């Protein structure tokens, strides 16, 4: 799995945006805002030699790339499935291009609570209506996603949207993680048990509507009570407890573990590198920090020790570390020593 950054542009202002630091870093490095067709071709070469069958396109908002349709067509022509991570408010030409792809070759993960107007309910409702139209046109190509960034989230509108649009009967849930060096809105691990119980209750409601939920990275099993974990198993939720280098490959070939870890582990895409070698390089950089987790008790947790749980999001773990320089001045050795 590897994500290809094709656009450094997004018109929305999501309070939890993971890419904010990343996009600022692109700007600071004077990187072009959009990937060129030539460089995109090199990225497809990379996927091919890595044995990765899917081109996962991210941004910014990937559909804002002026040649989005051509890039997608090129990926499909070379035999890749295409996965697009979008806010769903895409230009008509991009939507038409995705709509025209065969179902089995295209998935569009539509972030259902992306917004340009975090504080304006009426405008957010308009965005929701437009996004529902995107789901309707994409049908089974569309996979709704939702990022939980505040404890008072409401997932019920998603069920209505799913049932009325014919998109996939699944919701990809993410929990907003703190960017290591940024200031985005996120869920603090102390709030996890509260949101976990809400998720479990919603999972039951979703299952009754024929909808399953799946987890993005960063969830931990200990946020759920035993009863809630039993519920997730019963409704066959795709619950995973992982955090590992996804590989986000930037327009200029810089490779990061993932957006929230911008400014920490990174490497460069060389012309012969494959995904396994890049992943190994990033894993080596972050290995010392992997001994810890988001909670103090991760140090003694059997699930973490066994690898069944990663200990939560590494970016969140990194924020637990302190840098407190100190100096000690021992006296000259005393004669009694």
């Amino acid at each position, binding site marked *: 799995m590897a994500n290809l950054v094709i656009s450094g542009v997004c018109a929305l202002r999501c309070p939890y945006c993971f890419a904010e630091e990343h996009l600022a870093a692109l700007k600071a490095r004077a990187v072009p805002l959009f990937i060129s067709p030539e460089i995109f071709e090199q990225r497809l070469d990379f996927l091919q030699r890595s044995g990765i069958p899917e081109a996962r396109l991210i941004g910014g908002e990937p559909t804002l790339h002026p040649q989005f349709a051509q890039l997608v067509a090129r990926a499909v022509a070379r035999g890749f499935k295409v996965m697009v991570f979008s806010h769903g408010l895409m230009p008509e030409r991009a939507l038409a291009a995705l709509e025209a792809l065969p179902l089995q070759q295209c998935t569009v993960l539509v972030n259902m609570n992306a917004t340009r107007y975090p504080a304006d309910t009426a405008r957010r409702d308009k965005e929701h209506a437009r996004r529902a139209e995107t789901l309707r046109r994409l049908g089974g190509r569309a996979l709704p996603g939702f990022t939980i960034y505040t404890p008072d989230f409401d997932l019920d509108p998603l069920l209505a949207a799913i049932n009325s649009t014919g998109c996939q009967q699944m919701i990809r849930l993410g929990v907003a993680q703190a960017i290591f060096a940024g200031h985005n809105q996120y869920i603090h691990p102390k709030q996890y048990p509260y949101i976990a119980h809400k998720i479990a209750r919603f999972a039951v409601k979703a299952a009754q509507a024929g909808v399953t939920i799946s987890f993005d990275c960063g969830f931990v099993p200990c946020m759920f009570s035993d009863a809630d974990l039993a519920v997730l198993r019963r409704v066959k939720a795709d619950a995973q407890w992982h955090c590992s280098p996804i590989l986000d490959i930037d327009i200029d070939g810089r490779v990061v573990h993932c957006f929230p870890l911008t400014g920490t582990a990174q490497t460069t895409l060389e012309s012969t590198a494959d995904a396994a070698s890049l992943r190994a390089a990033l894993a*080596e950089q972050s290995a010392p920090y992997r001994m810890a987790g988001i909670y103090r008790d991760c*140090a003694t947790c059997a699930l973490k020790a066994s690898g069944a749980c990663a200990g939560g999001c590494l970016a969140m773990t990194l924020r637990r570390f302190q840098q*407190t*320089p*100190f100096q*000690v001045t*021992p*006296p000259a050795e005393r004669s009694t020593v």
Partner: protein
Amino acid sequence: MTLTRQGAAVRSPAHLRWLQDAGQLLVVDEKARRAHVLRGHEAALWTWFTLGYSYDKALHLLAAALKCPPAQAEAALRELLHSWQTLGLLEEARDGESGD
């Protein structure tokens, strides 16, 4: 037991990050990409020093924690500081240097 220079000040290098976990303290050396786990009185001493406690205050607390005479605690403390220096958790502090 002697430090690099008798009575010389030592300090934690700027490339160290640390956190307190259940039952242990984890110190990460970002330069060497290595993690060190401190437990028991080692972890306590690290915490005391990060709180700005002086050598004498830390020594006093260590003697109380180990329930031993001050001279014995001092020997243990000097040995520990030496081992931290060997591991790269401490370095000699030189005047006018920033720490990394």
